[in-house]
């Protein structure tokens, strides 16, 4: 066993580096595209050109990835569409992690009512897939960016709370916490200055993977017509449009999906790399 892992060590390190480079490359190019999108495409990818509708890719210089059924530039729309996905993915994960950390710290440190609440909420969350919850609520209260982010936060804070709670339970009887208590350090300081830094590694890994997952969920919901406003360029929305033209214009459905795949892959690669760096005991592994 030991000899096996030793001989694999060097190769494993190379693999990890490759993972990091690939992930950083993917996310770096997406970030660049987002940063310069308004400068590259001042019309926001909404300019309609019916004369050029459903132009195939690589046939017109102005439309390298072709055009959609309304003659809009697919390259522009794919790049601008990244904004919605990244917004939903990042904001919802940050919201969930903020709520989750606070609830997890309280639940692990004090126990009691909050603890019971977190654990029961976790039970419900395990039984109800997000997509079903989202369909129900969005069918009723309507989609849109804000509603989607709120729903994602409500349904996901509990996984962070559980992770943090578990780490707090393992840490709170250790000497450094007991001695902090003994010299009269305030609870709030113990929670945020002594406990939090010691359990943040796995949380960061989970956030990375969570952003990836939420981008997938957002695109599914928008594809189903339950997400963001269809007039805003978004990957899920473009795919919903493209489905009708699958027979004649494959490119309308291929490029937005590819954009989702590459973005999420970049995040997953970085998350996997971070896991070995920040979470050696594997609390966040599947």
């Amino acid at each position: 066993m030991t000899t096996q892992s030793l001989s694999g060590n060097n190769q494993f390190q190379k693999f990890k580096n490759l993972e990091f480079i690939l992930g950083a490359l993917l996310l770096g190019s997406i970030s660049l595209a987002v940063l310069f999108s308004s400068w590259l495409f001042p019309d926001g990818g909404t300019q309609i050109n019916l004369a050029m509708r459903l132009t195939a890719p690589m046939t017109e210089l102005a439309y390298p990835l072709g055009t959609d059924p309304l003659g809009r530039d697919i390259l522009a729309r794919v790049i601008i569409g990244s904004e919605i996905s990244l917004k939903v993915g990042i904001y919802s994960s940050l919201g969930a992690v903020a709520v989750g950390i606070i609830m997890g710290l309280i639940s692990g440190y004090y126990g009691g009512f909050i603890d019971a609440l977190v654990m029961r909420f976790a039970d419900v969350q395990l039984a109800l897939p997000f997509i079903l919850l989202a369909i129900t609520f969005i069918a009723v209260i309507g989609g849109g960016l804000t509603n989607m982010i709120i729903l994602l936060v409500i349904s996901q804070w509990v996984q962070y709370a559980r992770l943090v709670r578990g780490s707090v339970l393992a840490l709170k009887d250790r000497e450094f916490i007991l001695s902090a208590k003994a010299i009269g350090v305030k609870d709030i300081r113990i929670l945020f200055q002594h406990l939090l830094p010691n359990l943040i590694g796995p949380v960061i890994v989970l956030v990375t993977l969570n952003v990836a997952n939420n981008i997938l969920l957002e695109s599914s919901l928008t594809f189903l017509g339950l997400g963001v406003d269809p007039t805003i360029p978004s990957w899920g929305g473009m795919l919903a449009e493209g489905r009708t033209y699958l027979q004649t214009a494959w490119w309308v459905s291929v490029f937005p999906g590819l954009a989702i795949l590459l973005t999420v892959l970049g995040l997953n690669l970085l998350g996997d790399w971070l896991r070995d760096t920040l979470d050696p005991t594997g609390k966040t592994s599947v």
Partner: protein
Amino acid sequence: MARFLLYRIFQAFFVIIAVTLIVSFAIRLTGDPALMLSQGAGSVTEEDLANIREALGLNQPFLAQYMDFLKGLLVGDLGKSFMGGISVTELVARALPATLALAFTSLIVSIVISIPLGIKAATSRGRWPDQVIRILSLVGLSFPNFWLAIMLVLLFSITMSWLPPSGMEGFESFIMPAATMGIILTATNVRLVRTTMLETLNAQFVMVARAKGLSENVVLYKHALRNCSIPLITYFGLQFGGLLGGIVVIERVFNWPGLGTLAFDAVAARDYPVLQGVITVLSLLIISINLIVDIAYGLVDPRMRKG
């Protein structure tokens, strides 16, 4: 054991109450179903609306309505559809087999692929086959399931004309939907098999089996795999919720006549009793499977009986 059983059943019961309460509450937010029902019916008097409310029990407080729904649920009555007053139970019963059939085929596809790949990854830990499998699994995890479905349709129905693009007729129509969900599930399952297998391969009985001179395949697939089967079955069982959630989306792409399609048609028609029925049945299904898996695990492995 009795305490564990009681605790788990109580927990499942609590979750059922919570889930049905959340869904009923969400459905209540829609406003007045009486108005929706009478839409397009020409001139509607206040009296007509009152009659509809009376007939649907809408003039009762929320909790009373919820209790009615629960009572109905106990005897298998999920209410009536807004469209033509068809029984929701009947609609759900008609769509459920299609969804379950797809779920089981997907699970089988994924098990068939992920067990050999996971074992290969475990036995070549840290070397290139392990890393290739890891990358593949990451790529699989990154696919939007509905887009994978669309790409399969593009490739095998439109370009090659091999497989039917939609509907559920015969064996061929199962291939693409089951492959889509199977591939997505495999991405996680491969890692589960790998992790479980790595733990088992360190066990002494594996060493003994090898020392006896058994062939490596017999050691891996007969001795080691059998000892992995309990945790693996548990993991696969617990994935059922996520699997059903994914299938709901995939059904849209393949026009699969299951619960997902029923739910989306209900959303489009604002037919909330049907939506409520579908979500309730799906959650009940997931809760019972989780319960069965947990109890079964508790029976075979006493260490799991702690709440």
